[in-house]
């Protein structure tokens, strides 16, 4: 991809015998919205770690805005424009929401005092948290914590936003609100990569879906096509169901073979 915002070239990462990333290569352009799905333990959060700088790859190169960042630490990458949220929200508990955002804007965004206040306010507005600005983070409920997590990432002035399972545990209307926020963020030119189990949240906003399993990409393309891809279906649903979806009925022979006590009318 020419002028890609983020590029991964043959990135590999192992923890002992467990393969987190196996020769992964992909690119994301500015303004793209990409969704990532995959079973647990597939390496999705670790992929974010490799991109954001929390994890160092065993091999391969990572480039951001054309510049190699493989050797840079997380703080440096954040200042360059990679913002991320964490699966379990980790706000600065003793500080207020606004103070959390200020830290993000000043440290991550590299803004000086005046502009950092404006950036913090902007992050509040984007996530509809104006009302909680002066609430200590420790007192926030789950939904608000997730919003703060997102707001903090936004306050660091990212050009690439990494969202890690932000929709988990949210109710339907809350998911809809979240999708709107992400749409709005993307409309301002920020690229988004979103890991999610709540697939319908992804399909509402992403133009590209990637399936990651066992450290490898199994599907990469338009969401509908990827979800219909037999290789991707196989990952989640297994062999028989995938075959049945492709054509033919779902035969479940073992249900009558394998358990003698099953009551049959």
């Amino acid at each position, binding site marked *: 991809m020419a002028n890609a915002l983020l590029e991964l070239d043959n990135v590999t990462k192992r923890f002992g015998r467990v393969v987190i990333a196996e020769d992964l290569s992909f690119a994301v352009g500015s303004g793209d919205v990409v969704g990532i799905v995959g079973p647990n333990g597939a390496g999705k959060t670790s992929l974010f770690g490799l991109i954001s700088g929390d994890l160092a790859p065993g091999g391969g190169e990572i480039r951001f805005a054309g510049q190699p960042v493989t050797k840079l630490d997380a703080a440096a990458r954040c200042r360059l424009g990679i913002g991320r949220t964490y699966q379990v929200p980790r706000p600065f508990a003793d500080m207020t929401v606004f103070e959390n955002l200020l830290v993000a804007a000043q440290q991550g965004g590299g803004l000086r005092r005046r502009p950092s206040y404006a950036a913090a306010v902007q992050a509040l507005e984007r996530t509809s948290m104006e009302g909680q600005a002066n609430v200590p983070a420790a007192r926030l409920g789950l939904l608000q914590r997730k919003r703060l997590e997102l707001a903090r990432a936004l306050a660091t002035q990212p050009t690439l936003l990494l969202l890690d399972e932000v929709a988990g545990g949210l109710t339907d209307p809350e998911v809809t609100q979240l999708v709107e926020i992400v749409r709005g963020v993307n409309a301002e030119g920020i690229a988004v990569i979103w890991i999610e189990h709540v697939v319908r949240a992804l399909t509402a906003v992403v133009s590209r879906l990637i399936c990651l399993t066992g450290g490898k990409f199994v599907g990469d393309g338009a969401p509908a096509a990827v979800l219909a891809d037999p290789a991707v279906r196989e990952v989640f649903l297994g062999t028989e169901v995938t075959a049945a979806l492709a054509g033919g009925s779902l035969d479940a022979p073992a249900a*009558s073979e394998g358990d003698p006590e099953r009551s049959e009318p």
Partner: protein
Amino acid sequence: MSASAASGNEVRGDRAADGTPLLEVRDLVVHHGQLMALDAISLRVLPGEVYAIIGANGAGKSTLLRTIAGLHHPTSGSVLYDGKDVTGLRPERRATQGIVMVPEGRRLFGSLSVEENLKVGATYARQGPWTMERVYEMFGWMRERRNQPTAQLSGGEQQAVAIGRALVANPRVLMLDELSLGLAPVVVQRIYGMLPQILGTGLTVLLVEQDVSQALRVASHIQCLLEGRTTLEGKPSDVTADQVEAAYFGLAGTAASPAGEESEA
């Protein structure tokens, strides 16, 4: 009898006509902190069944099993065993009453040998057909290696020991949490191949399985969870692949029929 697709939480009425359940869950609501993991889940497991719970990660499958095992307190709702309310019973008491779980990730006692693990499982065992001898017969390789530390065993072998540890307690309900996690497909098949032997001794099995096709192969009844709610429930022979896919991902529009009865042609 047919399956209900995305019908929410009511357990099908005609299931009540099948007889008294050995294990029952009524309107179970479980939270992890503030996150609602299970939203008024109900299920009924009949004696001798293989009841499989499927669903994407984050759907609440393991939380359900852990709550039934007593490791997690529900916010509301009840767990009934053999007609008695056991919701308030401590996990070790449920085990001695006959509800024994093989936890996710095996959780063998690392500093104990294979045989010692089995012995611990047998410490508070009920009367019944399962003995260490019988477990050694079922898993032919185990006898020679019974004095080895469990860390030296392969994943599949560890899983076998974990199952053996549960069996020697002579449960009435055996709960299997994500047997296939981290194991090669061939190994998984072999382990599930033991189910008929286990059922033959009068046990009932409740299992959580990531691999949907595998679950459909062995189950006499399945229930699909998505974000803490039931999206599908019925006999494997009564569900179509499309229904399964729709229930698994929760995407309206990929389902053949989003609501109402679906009779098998």
